[in-house]
């Protein structure tokens, strides 16, 4: 009894802790159920073209959601992605019209890097919470998009062939970029010290510092990746519409976060997977597409999406409570 007797025995070694496998199993099951239902309800649902539609519809959000997942794993969030996509898209559009496609795309990506550096430096140097910082830059980039475009949609006819291109396996360019980003994301999170550091930072930033993780640098890089992804998304949107609109991607950040949270990433950081986010994206894509095929009113589609998000977040909370008991 001479001990510090306050020790709480956290270790019930027999208990199966919450792990990623069952979470993804539940999600996959949900996706399969949706697919089964919609293929029964609509004869068009299982067609190849329809699936290409589904993938195209989620690719813009998906390209952003992959780095978004990385950020959330590190307990960071980037709300500026939608307006940054419009911002980079508008600048790139103007530049393409004046200097040609390759230079314009390059410039758009450079703007994306600058966007990421700006967000990242504000958060890591000024220590402003990422939610608040990017809520601010969300407004700034949206405003700047209107200013730069003079409040008008900028027509970018030169980019139309990219929007229509199906260079590989008859897949649209947007889908190919999405798939490449996904594969890169999975590999980075699994096999690089950078990706692994994100988990550690999200799980316990103070402890990460004491084991020599360069947290500010890692977070900055992650925001830069997010910025580049918004530039890619902005370019794809511009190519699809053959126009850069300052209103483009309005509210995109919400679809992105919905997919990430649905995919099982913890809002507290430290947990989540890219494959989970991909499942989340597919669930949203299939649900939207299926509801359209069933002629469900678009307003009800929004209700369905919102409901889905709440269910996903409650899952996250239940997992926190039932899965791992924090000692």
């Amino acid at each position, binding site marked *: 009894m001479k001990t510090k007797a306050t020790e709480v*025995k*956290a270790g019930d*070694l027999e208990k199966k802790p919450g792990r990623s496998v069952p979470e993804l199993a539940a999600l996959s099951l949900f996706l399969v159920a949706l697919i089964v239902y919609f293929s029964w309800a609509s004869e068009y649902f299982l067609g190849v073209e329809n699936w290409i539609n589904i993938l195209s519809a989620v690719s813009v959000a998906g390209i952003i959601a992959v780095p978004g997942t990385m950020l959330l794993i590190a307990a960071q969030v980037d709300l500026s992605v939608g307006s940054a996509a419009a911002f980079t898209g508008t600048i790139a559009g103007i530049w393409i019209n004046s200097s040609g496609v390759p230079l314009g795309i390059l410039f758009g990506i450079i703007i994306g890097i600058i966007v990421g550096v700006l967000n990242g430096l504000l958060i890591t140097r000024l220590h402003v919470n990422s939610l608040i910082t990017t809520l601010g830059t969300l407004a700034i980039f949206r405003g700047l998009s209107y200013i730069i475009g003079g409040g008008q949609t900028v027509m970018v006819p030169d980019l139309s062939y990219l929007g229509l291109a199906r260079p590989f396996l008859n897949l649209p360019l947007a889908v190919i970029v999405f798939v490449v980003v996904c594969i890169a994301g999975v590999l980075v999170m699994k096999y690089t*010290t950078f990706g692994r550091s994100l988990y550690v930072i999200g799980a316990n930033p*103070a*402890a990460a510092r*004491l084991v*020599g993780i*360069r947290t500010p640098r890692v977070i900055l890089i992650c925001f830069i990746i997010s910025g580049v992804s918004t530039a890619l998304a902005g370019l794809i949107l511009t190519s699809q519409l053959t126009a850069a609109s300052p209103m483009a991607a309005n509210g995109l950040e919400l679809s992105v976060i919905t997919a990430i949270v649905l995919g099982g990433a913890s809002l507290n950081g430290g947990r989540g997977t890219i494959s989970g986010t991909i499942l989340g994206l597919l669930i949203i894509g299939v649900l939207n597409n299926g509801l359209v095929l069933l002629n469900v009113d678009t307003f009800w589609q929004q209700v369905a999406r919102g409901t889905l998000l709440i269910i996903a977040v409650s899952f996250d909370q239940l997992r926190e409570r039932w899965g791992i008991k924090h000692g």
Partner: protein
Amino acid sequence: MLATDSALLTASAIRKSFGGVEVLHGVDLHLARGEVLALLGENGAGKSTLVKILAGDYVADSGSVSSGDKEYSTLDPIQSRALGIRMIFQELSDAPLLTVAENISMGSWASKGGIVSWSKMHERANSALAMLGIEIDSSRLVGTLRIGERQLVEIARAISDNAQVLILDEPTAALSSAETDKLFEVINALRTRGVGMIYITHRLDEVGIIADRVQVLRDGSQSLIADAKKASRLELVKAMIGHEISNQAHPEAGMHSGETLLEVSQLSLGNIFSDISFNLRAGEVLALYGKVGSGAEEVGETIFGLHPERTGTLTLNQSAFTPKNPIDAIRAFIGFLPADRQRLGAFMVRPVAENLAVPSWPRYAARGIITKVKENDAYMRWSELLKIKSRNDPEQPIATLSGGNQQKVLLSRWFECDAKILVLIEPTRGVDVGARRDIYTTLRESAKKNKIGILITTSDHEEVIQVADRVVVMSRGKKVAEYEGKNIDSSKIIQTASE
């Protein structure tokens, strides 16, 4: 001074068990009006259990508490408050973003029909402060006050709420000597007003200065009740640790020490510690022993680069070492375990293998590419060596392990990345007895075998006896003694640390 007619609070034959283990074996406590009773005892002696029973936080299994003509066999927090018992905790429970006046009135705001009366609130706060001779502006935010002042505000709050019995839990642990003097003035002011105080402390020198009587608990029984002015320090130490505790240091202590790894010279940090000098040698476990607030912890943190504003010199392998952050220290092969494992040590939701491997990632990874194979192997290897009890699943979250096993994982963390120096803050805090023995064995063996230097900072004298080859004793930010091998002795180090 022991006038029983002025009895304020009497506890008789208090017994209390937790999970079948009795921690209080029928303890009495008597407090007179205007009396300061110093309550002493080692960690786990039952002091906090006893005062928590008085505060109504725990219910005694048997025994009674009486005050005036009222007698209670069980006391709940509301009854305890009604008796005027208030506890001032070591961890302040104030609201830093509110003003002094608001803090003092907290919970019983002066109001008229639901509208708070600020003028009344300030009036009340100012009179409580003035009564105790405390000069603090009642409109200041509590968060802007120094720690000692915040404590005084808490005392003022208790007094304005009609406290008759004040329980002070190691009130000077975090105070400077000037703040301590001020606190003693306030205690004397309270004494003249008839408030009885139970003063828990580890500092034996304070007993004679501030207390009237002293009561020592050991292993749940009272081992001494004496006049505070007459009790000698030796008497108190003996009553605290008893005679059955082994005073014998590790028999082969000091035999394996090799060349100097780290030379600490005149290290100082603000008013936390000053002029600390010692050497850490290869193959030894060196303990930096001191009570809470002695600065020992901060010396350890400074070596790990957590206080770059420090002055004095560190010499590592014959060259100057100026760590500005943990990364500098890790590069110099220094490993570090913080005292607060939950908050600063472990990545609770992450797998055990990852928890173990993070600082070794740079070594595992070629150009930033890493696979889990190496870290899983490392986990299996160390889990066998250190007898880590788990499911033997490297993917198991560390939160599912017991405290002792978590600590073993975190310790392996630094063995795995070949640290040459380990700085361990309170390495067995919250660790059960079995795992504690394993950890001591591991520390001694790896120091010897791998010729690494291990510096532990601890406030547990038994830990020093069991693990250290050498001990540097600190008190109030100063090095007060150094003992080696067979010369390490419980009562000696406790006494010097209490100076």
